[in-house]
């Protein structure tokens, strides 16, 4: 009887087994790497209706974060500055700049400037700014060195795992509350002693149960 299969068929089962397993591993790795917020979210820097430079305002001019994001210490939302906030200076400064036309238009019509939302959390995740800054989590810890950004860019993944990294181990991310808006703050040498002191003094116990954020 003639052979049903050619000789190379002998090796097919082994090759099949190997390639199926490799494929499976590759799929898992692929989703883990390219599907993660670290890959898909970090670096998101959309262009805004006004080419507002945080580098200029927060960096060179040294305006405090809270001048514009005024509700950060009291409220869940840090707040987007109103047209009036911009106009406190820009009613006097650079009034003839073509870059500021959308601002003056907003001022005249009463329709706010439509800034593009960058640091987005999903609707099912609850986040409160005041709860974090009031125990000493600095702005720069989550938003990066905004004072060096010409265009604001998302610098952290904002994934659940990223949140949990700090909630499980908050020590490295705490600073004195009066330093939270200081972009250039560096931890001192005795930082961990300080952090442990703050944790026990303020009774900081970051929740890691589901209901803390998924309410």
């Amino acid at each position, binding site marked *: 009887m003639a052979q*049903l*299969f050619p000789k190379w068929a002998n090796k097919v*089962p082994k090759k099949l087994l190997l390639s199926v397993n490799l494929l499976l591993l590759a799929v*898992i790795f692929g989703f*883990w790497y390219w599907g*993660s917020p*670290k890959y898909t979210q970090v670096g998101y820097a959309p262009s805004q209706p006004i080419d507002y430079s945080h580098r200029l305002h927060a960096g060179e001019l040294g305006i405090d974060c809270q001048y514009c994001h005024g509700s950060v210490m009291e409220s869940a939302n840090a707040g987007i500055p109103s047209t009036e906030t911009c106009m406190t200076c820009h009613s006097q400064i650079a009034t003839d700049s073509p870059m500021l036309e959308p601002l003056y238009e907003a001022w005249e019509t009463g329709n706010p400037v439509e800034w593009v939302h960058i640091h987005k959390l999903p609707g099912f995740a609850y986040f409160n700014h005041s709860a974090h800054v009031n125990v000493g989590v600095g702005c720069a810890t989550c938003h990066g060195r905004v004072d060096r950004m010409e265009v604001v860019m998302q610098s952290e993944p904002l994934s*659940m*795992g990223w949140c949990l990294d700090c909630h499980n181990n908050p020590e490295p991310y705490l600073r004195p509350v009066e330093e939270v808006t200081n972009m250039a703050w560096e931890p001192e040498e005795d930082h961990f002693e300080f952090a442990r002191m703050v944790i026990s003094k303020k009774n900081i116990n970051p929740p890691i149960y589901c209901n803390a954020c998924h309410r």
Partner: protein
Amino acid sequence: MSSNSGYVKEAPLVKGNHTFSSITALVADIVEKPTPFWWYIAFGISNLLMGLLFLMLGYLIWEGTGVWGLNNTVAWGWAIINFVWWVGIGHAGTLISAVLFLFRQGWRTAINRFAEAMTIFAVMCAGIFPAVHVGRIWVIYWVFPLPNQMQMWPNFQSPLLWDVFAVSTYFTVSLLFWYVGLIPDLATLRDRVKSKLAAKLYGAFALGWTGGNRQWQNYEKAYMLLAGLATPLVLSVHTIVSFDFAVSIIPGWHTTIFPPYFVAGAIFSGFAMVMTLMIIARKIYGLQDIMTIDHIEKMNIIILVTGWMVGFAYIMEFFIAWYSGVEYEKFAFVNRATGPYAWAYWIMMSCNVIAPNFFWFRKMRRSITVSFILSIVVNIGMWFERFVITVTSLAQDFLPGSWAYYSPTWVDVLTYVGTFGLFFTNFLLFLRFLPMIAIAEVKMVMPQADPHYYDEDGNEPVKETEELNEPNTNS
């Protein structure tokens, strides 16, 4: 008779004085001959029901689990009942193929292939329910411990997660066991079929089997190892399924008797299902010489024994409810027998505890009609057992204010009906394209396989045991 007079000779496992080649022909011809007309009709109906299943699942996923009859207290309804019922049915296949193999029960060879196929298809039907009941089927991969950016990990303290591993391991081992057993028979078919394409297909799955001495040695060792692997699964899978209930603190669920009680019930219902399918198949395909009335009798004895194990558990649950002095436990059980679901409880009791007692009588054990009817009765009873356990404990829990009566919706009912479509679609394909009896294994238990069967000159022995070897005319 002189040499054998010291003991009662066992009835031969294969009747009708077959030769090796006639056994091969008997089984392989089913696959090789043209498809019978009834098969198309049965397959068509099964396909329609399977379509119904997919329609119902699609509707469920689209709309959410609200389309099921679940209400405030009864958070587990038909989905888990059907899951436990189908998984339980699967157990007979593993018991027959693994446990009876290790105990050297030669009669298993007539039904093991058949029962293993049933196991695989039953577990497929069972697996659907826990998968779709999660509501968000698109994140079902969360049950697996995969690395992810949420740092989310399955809850290893939950019996529901143990279930995922128990059932998927069970399915994998059953499939492997079934496939390894099929290899020599696939090679038989490869060498017999006329069509070139069929030969290639069977050949590809036969993995180059030639029937050489070394291959048989490896094969038997692999088969033995898989039987050893599958044996603990017979006990572990339904034990873990019972943990879904027993690990919680609901009265009527939180009992230590659950694991053995569930395993006995699973084997009970599984054997009944094998019986139902086998009685039909042996008649249609004329396999009465292999699946003999003696096989049916042996299975009926197992049904009787496991039926009484289950009955013992029912009674013991009541005893412990009283003996423990826990009033919630007492209420749960009295409520089962007399409460709003008493009708289901008494269906369960009469089907599972009373009905199998017919099998105390030899005449009943050897009656095809009685066996067939009781096998169906037992499976109805076992479905109601799961219904009683799941629903009665939840519908009347600790808080009387939230008591409610649970009824399924049409989606529940049609989904369950649809799983029969999936089951029979697979089963009919199996009957049509694969040898439904383990040809090679049956040959091993034939009288001709005994090295001393032929005399020194290679002649057939004088038929002194003619009366035992007579063709089976019992059905």
